């Protein structure tokens, strides 16, 4: 059964159509990756789910309740966003104290422990933090609030490689212990590819793919060899794009290929999620 439901959502800003009759159903306790190029509509989608924006048309339900001006479904969602909703002068420590006011299951002890792991000094004021540490503070809030849904918009913005690694591990640890519905919107596809279970690709305000990562990867492949042989073999197949280097050509396909069916001289290899995304959303 779906936990979050978007029914025929359209969102326009003036003459710009940000989301175009988009429908989406999300199951409980899964990690979703929301992928899309800049301006595709990812953040608009997350803002609509959390009632920060109103849809022009359509309806959004969380656990059966409409999110419009409705506290009950909204208290089930934590939205980690680029924007900062905390007062400038607030310290991290007091933000943790306040966390419980908004999210009854907020785990302050865990928040403090997690801050220590990231060497986040909780006596500091939120506004004094660097970009990376602002992200870390928001990550800590998101993982500590214990809401059934967490929306993470670019969670690793400004984080160094060590902190990204730590974030992914802590996310999985927390998710394993307390399964939740998590949506990660990110441009760092390669890093998130193995963390997410299902992938949602959004392009020009529409969803062009929603499937398990495993299914997607089993379909995506590249076929390379001499241009003529590649063209002959891939004719009529679902081709996402080509690369050519002299007489050598590589076709990127979204179609499962039986190894026995591949003629000699052609090489078939796996397509990773990032490449697949690039070819699906080019142009």
């Amino acid at each position, binding site marked *: 059964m779906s936990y979050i439901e978007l029914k025929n959502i359209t969102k326009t800003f003036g003459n710009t159509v940000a989301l175009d009759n988009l429908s989406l159903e999300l199951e409980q306790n899964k990690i979703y990756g929301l992928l899309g190029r800049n301006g595709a509509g990812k953040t608009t989608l997350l803002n609509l789910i959390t009632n920060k924006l109103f849809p022009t048309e359509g309806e959004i339900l969380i656990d059966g309740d409409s999110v419009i001006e409705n506290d009950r479904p909204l208290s089930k969602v934590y939205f980690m966003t680029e924007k900062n909703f905390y007062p400038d002068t607030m310290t991290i420590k007091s933000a943790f104290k306040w966390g419980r006011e908004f999210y009854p299951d907020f785990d302050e002890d865990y928040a403090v422990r997690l801050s220590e792991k990231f060497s986040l000094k909780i006596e500091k004021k939120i506004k004094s933090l660097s970009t990376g540490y602002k992200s870390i503070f928001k990550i800590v809030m998101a993982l500590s609030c214990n809401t059934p849904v967490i929306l993470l918009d670019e969670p690793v913005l400004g984080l160094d490689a060590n902190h990204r690694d730590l974030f992914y591990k802590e996310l*999985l640890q927390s998710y394993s*212990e307390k399964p939740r519905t998590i949506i990660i919107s990110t441009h760092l596809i390669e890093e998130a590819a193995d963390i997410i279970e299902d992938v949602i690709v959004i392009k020009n305000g529409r969803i062009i793919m929603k499937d398990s990562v495993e299914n997607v990867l089993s379909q995506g492949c590249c076929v390379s060899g001499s241009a003529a042989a590649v063209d002959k073999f891939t004719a009529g197949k679902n081709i996402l794009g080509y690369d050519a280097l002299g007489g050598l050509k590589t076709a990127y396909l979204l179609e499962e290929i039986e190894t026995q069916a591949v003629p000699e001289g052609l090489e078939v290899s796996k397509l990773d999620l990032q490449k697949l995304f690039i070819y699906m959303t080019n142009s």
Partner: protein
Amino acid sequence: MKIDFNADKPIYIQLAEEIEDAVLSGAYEEEAQIPSTTEISVSYKINPATALKGINLLVDSGIVYKKRGLGMFVSSNAKEKISDKRRVAFFDAYITSLVSEAKKLSITKEDIIKMLERGFDK
């Protein structure tokens, strides 16, 4: 253990094979406990569902078994089971690709046999 995220094999299959390798090498002894799905998920940074799928492959082939409330353990005859399974798969896994590469390089059957002998004498 090492998982190659760019390899052609799905991650859950690689995970199962890695654990099998660890059993064959003695890193996980028979009747010893293997890491939990959560530990595997966190340490490889893979979705717990992927980790569980890999473990379930091993359960299905009788290489590990579940002790209720305790975790997953290596079966008492796991080594033998893994060797038996891999012997069956040996031809497809190694010989087919060996012959295909040899043909590309015009290496003859006799050459390969000589190389095999050299390999075994090493």
